[in-house]
């Protein structure tokens, strides 16, 4: 019946899903998601649901995705039906759609689509949108868990993404790194400084992952900053360095690696994060990496976390407990923060108690003991018992208070609560072992208590005490044994064992009184149900009762049983927790969990530091060298986003601001010059000031006179691009200071350029190379006759467009061939076609016979469809709108990439034959030299040439602007004699 109603329900839902109404479908999906949430099975509906995967309704689509990801594993064949939808969406111009397609595609756990996923990930990893790249980083982990055989390929993608300079990607790719190849520490070297510098701007979850990874990294790469006398590290004797700053007359004072310092400095502000996981991550980083005298800065932050939720408190207290064993001083000033409240959960109370005990020393012990006294009376008896243990630990650790504690504990023996009494007995037993002779009265007192105590552990403890110190209590001990003989069979095992013990010891010391009792007990033990007790009894009998068989051993029975025993050392349960990295799950559980990565010991000698210096890329062309300006002042490039935001924000505030605003695009490949790095710490205000000064001294001659930024931009557009490339190609530091007095709109444009430039450079430095050939030919856009005096020509600059990654850069030459000045020349706001056009800034006035060159960007969406737009101008107060169109050739939509021939063949090999197409060019035999072929090819398309070892093959990699997937062209020269 139940099954029937279920199938009936499913029929209903199926009907709804197959209806034409969106709202019905949505309602059905909502109900299905409700079923999934409750853990009910809804997989029979799979075919009906999957049909809606391409729905236009976003909510419906999302719910279908939820369903698909949930059931794809169980319905693999049907799930494949949806794949093509995602493949299509992967090529969508909207980055968010691309990202969501990749997200769902990679979540479908169907092994057969692994190659498709791999391809999609590779493609997305080079996507221009950082958001898509972030999704790719997540997809790496998903693919890895689906098919670990892809590891090598995935590592390549990780390597590529690690180089990414976007804060959005950093956290996710490090997560992928940790999951796929945490041992490939070599991949981090080059990105180490970048990660350190980006850290503050990464989203909080990424910060946690990066910090944990960098902690491990630093432990393999730097030498120990801890001094030789530090108790923490056994290996520290190898390092004979002194802590920073305090240079003792040793042969080789410790100097911290600037990179080590960089990490510590850049993580410090994160102690102020609102995210407790980030604070904990930084704290453990300092604990494992910082010189001991700098550790104290983490204390306050950790104590602050104690105000957070119960669960957070639990974890933080555990870590503090481990820390406080080694470094009491860190938390002693905050001792009162660990005072227990009656409303705390038991595990929180126990941890606080643990910490208080760890912090106890001669100076504060009286305060702590007074506090512990209140806890003993707690209604929470488990906690009271733990308190007694803590008192015992204080008593053994601090000899001054041993007697006080012991007296206090004896008082507790008259407590009404049994657990308290029992715990006291156990602790007293341990304490007495340290100095038994002085305390025979306590032992006597306990013997009296014996009848009233029923807790086995406590009874066993008293029995042991009686036996061990039977000489101090010669009268009581046999009496206790007598009582035990009566109750022996009903006792717990642990009590029985101790009874046998006591009997044996008494037999040896006082056999006259106890011989019979002992034999009686041994007989009882002989037939006990527990074999431990039977064994023990047999052993004791052989040992103490001399007979012909027992031989030599029984002569030593007394020395064996009555040997002086060392007092137990009461120590913290957190004593050995420090073998785990703090803040980890393994530390919390005190056992190694799956996937725990061991923190290595400091190396005795630091590995090569130069591996972290970002490599100089080979020069691409000699003439460019001349344009670079060496010795320019430098600032950090990375942490500037904040400042730029500020400027952007303020720019819209007042459009007539006459004050000169400057914007900077600074770049530096982190030099190890510590001066430089310290300047990055100074706040943005300061930086502005210094920049102003620098600007005065170092303004580039080229830009000195250009006050009109728009003009400056357009005219030196090419120069700028080259300049940017120079920066990244040759690691030269340069700074652009544009002094603009133009409208703030222009400033925005310029800032936008910079922003783009940041993300764009990543790519440029990796991939895009200079166009081999820039055609000089211009195409006519507007004839002077149709334009009523205004004529326009355009040409493709074949430069990466600064306005947008997917745009094609165009240069427009406007000239006025009429006899009147033209005013306000601009592109109309309305764009007739779908293309995204970056307009040039309106030209206020164009004198007769004058011409001006401006640049613009057009996103052709990788199609050769013409871009149509209106060019507006005003002549003697009459405005004109002129429709024009630009038709790109395929070749202009490409960007060349530099790579070696080996890389080319490798990349080409990965293409799996999906994007292959070929064409034949016929040429006359005279023109068949390789140069001429190249020239011919590059004149029609924006391609790069890879020198080939093979005579007749020219490899030309290129990248489509939008698709970002490198595609490869082989030009195979076939000598055709005919």
């Amino acid at each position: 019946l139940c099954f029937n109603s279920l199938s009936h329900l499913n029929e209903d839902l199926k009907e709804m899903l197959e209806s034409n109404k969106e709202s019905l479908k949505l309602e059905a999906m909502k109900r299905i998601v409700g079923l999934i949430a409750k853990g009910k099975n809804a997989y029979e509906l799979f075919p009906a649901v999957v049909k809606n995967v391409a729905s236009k309704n976003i909510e419906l689509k999302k719910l279908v995705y939820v369903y698909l990801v949930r059931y794809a594993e169980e319905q693999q064949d049907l799930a494949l039906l949806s794949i093509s939808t995602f493949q299509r969406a992967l090529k969508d111009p909207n980055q968010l759609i691309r990202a969501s397609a990749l997200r769902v595609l990679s979540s479908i756990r169907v092994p057969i689509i692994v190659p498709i996923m791999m391809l999609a990930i590779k493609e997305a990893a080079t996507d221009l949108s950082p958001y898509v790249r972030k999704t790719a980083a997540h997809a790496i982990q998903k693919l890895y868990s689906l098919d670990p055989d892809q590891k090598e390929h995935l590592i390549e993608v990780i390597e590529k993404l690690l180089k990414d300079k976007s804060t959005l990607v950093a956290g996710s790719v490090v997560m992928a790194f940790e999951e796929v190849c945490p041992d490939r520490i070599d991949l981090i070297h080059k990105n180490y400084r970048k990660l350190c510098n980006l850290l503050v701007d990464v989203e909080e979850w990424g910060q946690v992952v990066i910090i944990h990874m960098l902690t491990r990294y630093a432990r393999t790469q730097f030498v120990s900053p801890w001094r030789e006398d530090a108790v923490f590290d056994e290996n520290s004797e190898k390092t004979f360095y002194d802590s920073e700053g305090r240079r003792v007359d040793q042969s080789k004072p410790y100097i911290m690696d600037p990179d080590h310092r960089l990490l510590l400095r850049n993580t410090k502000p994160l102690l102020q994060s609102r995210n407790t996981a980030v604070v904990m991550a930084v704290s453990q980083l300092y604990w494992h990496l910082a010189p001991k005298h700098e550790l104290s800065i983490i204390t306050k932050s950790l104590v602050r976390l104690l105000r957070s939720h119960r669960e957070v408190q639990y974890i933080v207290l555990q870590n503090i407990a481990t820390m406080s064993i080694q470094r009491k001083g860190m938390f002693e000033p905050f001792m009162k923060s660990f005072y227990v409240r009656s409303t705390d959960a038991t595990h929180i109370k126990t941890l606080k108690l643990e910490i208080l005990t760890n912090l106890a020393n001669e100076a504060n012990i009286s305060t702590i003991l007074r506090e512990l006294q209140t806890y003993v009376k707690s209604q929470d008896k488990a906690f009271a018992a733990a308190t007694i243990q803590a008192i015992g630990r204080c008593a053994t650790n601090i000899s001054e208070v041993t007697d006080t504690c012991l007296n206090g504990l004896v008082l507790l023996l008259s407590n009404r609560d049994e657990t308290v009494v029992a715990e006291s007995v156990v602790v007293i037993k341990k304490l007495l072992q340290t100095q038994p002779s002085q305390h025979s009265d306590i032992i006597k007192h306990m013997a009296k208590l014996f009848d009233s105590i029923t807790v086995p552990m406590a009874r066993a403890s008293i029995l042991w005490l009686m036996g061990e110190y039977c000489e101090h209590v010669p009268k009581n001990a046999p009496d206790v044994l007598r009582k035990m003989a009566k109750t022996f069979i009903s006792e717990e095992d642990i009590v029985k064992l101790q009874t046998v013990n006591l009997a044996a010891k008494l037999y040896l010391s006082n056999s006259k009184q106890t011989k019979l009792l002992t034999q009686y007990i041994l007989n009882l033990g002989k037939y006990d149900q527990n074999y431990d007790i039977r064994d023990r009894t047999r052993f004791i009998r052989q040992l103490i009762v001399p007979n012909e068989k027992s031989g030599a051993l029984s002569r030593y029975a007394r020395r064996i049983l009555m040997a002086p025993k060392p007092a137990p050392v009461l120590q913290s349960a957190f004593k050995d927790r420090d073998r785990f990295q703090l803040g980890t799950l393994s530390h919390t559980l005190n056992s190694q969990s799956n996937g725990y990565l061991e923190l290595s010991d400091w190396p005795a000698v630091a590995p090569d530091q130069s591996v972290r210096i970002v490599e100089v890329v080979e020069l691409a062309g000699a003439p460019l060298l001349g344009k670079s300006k060496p010795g320019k002042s430098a600032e950090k490039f990375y942490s500037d986003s904040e400042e730029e935001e500020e400027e952007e924000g303020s720019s819209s505030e007042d459009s007539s601001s006459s004050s000169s605003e400057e914007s900077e695009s600074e770049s530096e490949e982190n030099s190890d010059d510590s001066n430089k790095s310290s300047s990055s710490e100074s706040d943005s205000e300061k930086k502005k000031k210094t920049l102003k000064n620098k600007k005065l001294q170092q303004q580039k001659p080229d830009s000195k006179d250009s006050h009109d930024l728009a003009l400056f931009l357009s005219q030196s557009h090419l120069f700028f691009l080259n300049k940017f490339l120079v920066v990244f190609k040759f690691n030269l530091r340069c700074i652009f200071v544009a002094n603009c007095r133009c409208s703030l709109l222009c400033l925005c444009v310029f800032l936008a350029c910079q922003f783009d430039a940041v993300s764009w450079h990543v790519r440029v430095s990796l991939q895009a190379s200079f166009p081999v050939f820039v055609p000089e030919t211009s195409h006519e856009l507007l004839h002077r006759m149709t334009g009523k005096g205004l004529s326009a020509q355009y040409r493709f600059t074949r430069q990466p467009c600064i306005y947008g990654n997917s745009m094609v850069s165009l240069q427009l030459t406007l000239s006025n061939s009429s006899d009147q000045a033209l005013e306000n020349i601009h592109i109309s706001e309305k764009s007739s076609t779908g293309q995204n056009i970056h307009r040039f800034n309106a030209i206020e006035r164009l004198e007769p016979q004058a011409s001006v060159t401006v640049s613009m960007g057009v996103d052709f969406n990788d199609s050769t469809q013409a871009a149509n737009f209106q060019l507006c101008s005003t002549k003697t107060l009459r405005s004109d709108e002129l429709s024009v169109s630009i038709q790109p050739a395929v070749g202009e939509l490409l960007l060349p990439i530099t790579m070696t021939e080996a890389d080319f063949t490798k990349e080409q090999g990965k293409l799996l034959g999906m994007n292959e197409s070929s064409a034949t060019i016929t040429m006359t035999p005279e023109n068949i030299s390789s140069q001429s072929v190249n020239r011919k090819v590059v004149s029609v398309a924006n391609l790069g040439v890879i020198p080939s070892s093979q005579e007749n093959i020219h490899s030309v990699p290129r990248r489509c602007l939008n698709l970002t997937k490198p595609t490869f062209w082989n030009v195979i020269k076939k000598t055709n004699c005919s």
Partner: protein
Amino acid sequence: MIHSLFLISNAGDLFLEKHWKSVISRSVCDYFFEAREKAVEPDNVPPVIRTPHHYLINIYREKIFFVSVIQTEVPPLFVIEFLHRVAETFQDYFGECSETTIKDNVVIVYELLEEMLDNGFPLATESNILKELIRPPTILRSMVNTITGSSNVGETLPTGQLSTIPWRRAGVKYTSNEAYFDVVEEIDAILDKSGTAVFAEIQGVIDACVKLSGMPDLTLSFMNPRLLDDVSFHPCVRYKRWESERVISFIPPDGNFQLMSYHISAQNLVAIPVYVKQNISFFETGSSGRLDITVGPKQTMGKTLECLVVTVHMPKVVLSANLSATQGTYNYDPVTKILVWDIGKLNPQKLPNLKGSLSLQSGAPKPEENPSLNIDLKIQQLAISGLKVNRLDVYGEKYKPFKGVKYVTKAGKFQVRT
């Protein structure tokens, strides 16, 4: 990282499950139920539970256990912090985070969880971004939705995630621009029998409600910033400005958020606004006890104490209480053994007093320890630390917003030992 999430009610009803990787059977929760049973009180459930193949990290909030399943090493705080963020998001969306609201909004909950994690790694946790992706339900909208069949999912894809300031949504517009700040301070204290403070410190937060158009850049400064001992900030605050100038400079998220929290430690002298004279005793014979509590003002800076509540966790043997209060009402719950005395406003001329007898379970020994009192109170228009906001400046936008600062002092974990 986070493999699956199970929501379990206090009664042990597993009412929602969500998996971000392959599906894990809900039988894994048996280990949790076992631990739950052992702990007796829900607060005592260990936050991290080990099972043979998984690790369960759980939080307990609003009578719901959020149990996440982990398979490999992960910083436990990472998961705990995330789970709390989930609970806060639910609260933000539905007004409260309870079993009923979650069940009622299961689709939105699912959509939220889908957006918050990708493959177990947090993707979008900022409330501003989530609200652009999935609109919070309102009565009006749910009505419109049922009629027109439109959805809760935003039609426009959010751009906040792509920007350099992910916490603020783009294109914010208000007709009246307002920025309100609440300085809320809580006194944590333990007073001993004689009324002296064993331990006292102040925990403060500044809650903001900022409804400003465009991209305002705000600067908040204090009269006495040196007072702040230890601070933590919302990610929007620029650390470096604080370090160098002690001002809080930020581009705010839209709507309500916690701008910062701070800590004024025990080293500074903390004013205790209230004193308690109490006498609770249990008699050796007769299974009864006596209770006498008087509350009076101490260092209140001339302000009135409001919402005064005294809570006592009585020992298990106390069966009932027969008391009389000169002001306010009292209530003793014999099941949870909690005595609550709601006083309300404190009148310094006539101090409130609660007096009477307690009856104990007959035959049971008298309790060892006297119960401690927990005090709740509120003082309007006062930050007990003396912190004062100096000014708020808006840069980047032309309008003049309406600005307001409110101060409140509350008792945090304020306990009087007896």
